[in-house]
């Protein structure tokens, strides 16, 4: 329990609490707005053909980027850690046509095992 003047403490807590809720409300609103923009404005209508063929390739482009960043990224750095081995085993499993569930479980299990071994070594 910190002791300060009651007024100062209340003011500090209040500004901190309101910052927290400001972040909660603002982050929520911008996220909701960004997600809604395309479907609300364009929904149900076919995109122009040229745009549609570009957007069709968004899947491979963004999925590959998500794979790369979630495998090698650590904040603003690139690293090689246990995830690489886990995802590598996942690649083998995909190549052997394993179901998605098995791919995901194998990747997590191998990563956890490597971390456990490295941690005790």
């Amino acid at each position, binding site marked *: 329990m910190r002791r300060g003047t009651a007024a100062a403490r209340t003011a500090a807590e209040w500004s901190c609490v309101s910052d927290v809720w400001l972040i909660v409300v603002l982050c*929520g609103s911008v996220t909701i707005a960004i997600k809604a*923009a395309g479907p609300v404005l364009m*929904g149900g209508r076919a995109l122009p053909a040229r745009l549609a063929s570009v957007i069709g390739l968004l899947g491979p482009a*963004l999925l590959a980027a998500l794979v790369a960043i979630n495998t090698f990224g650590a904040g603003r750095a690139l690293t090689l850690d246990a995830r690489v081995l886990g995802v590598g085993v996942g690649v083998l499993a995909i190549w052997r046509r394993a179901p998605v569930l098995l791919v995901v479980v194998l990747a997590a299990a191998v990563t956890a095992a490597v971390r456990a071994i490295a941690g005790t070594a």
Partner: protein
Amino acid sequence: MDRPRTYLHGVRAVAPLAIAVGGFGISFGVLARSAGMGVVAPIAMSMITFAGSAQFAAISILDAGGTVATAVTAAVLLNARYGPIGLSVAPSLKGGRLSRFLHAQLVVDETWAVASEGGGRFDPRVLVGAGVTLYAAWIAGTAMGVGFGDVLGDPASWGLDAAFPALFLALLFPQLRDRSSWSAAGVGAAVALALTPFTPPGVPIVCASVGCVVGLPRRGRPPSGAA
């Protein structure tokens, strides 16, 4: 497309990920609590935001003493990819304005990927089944992390952070059907990795979208125009 897909297909498709998402919800709850957000605010944030990376970024900025403006800017950058992603889903949502708005809120990377039928088409029922499942897992995880995260340990030691790239890879593979999809994927990954050290988190993923332009065949115009 022969047999119609249902909500249950969406639930099944993301079931393996629901555990990982729950695990990350737990770490979010733990971090949010230690950042001084209290009990209710982290859970409220997971309920109205439903975008893990943006939430992590916002609370880490708050924890480091950053301003509200910085935290919100980070959230905008991290979620900017939902602009083009929303545009890609839009033609598949046939309902009214409110229905499209609600469907759009269930779009996150994982649900967007499992609802994809290839060729730019998405199954709204799979999106809803997957979205509701992950939304529930995310909120339940957050509540568990806020409540008793100290007992549960670090999800990284369970290897859950490797579950996400493995899922994205498994979903990427069937989409690699021709030269342009391979180019799009290659450029997307290369751009994302190249920009990671130099730009704030979120920007590399947004810029990876250029992969879909580069992946287009050079002679994309119909031959009828040739004369």
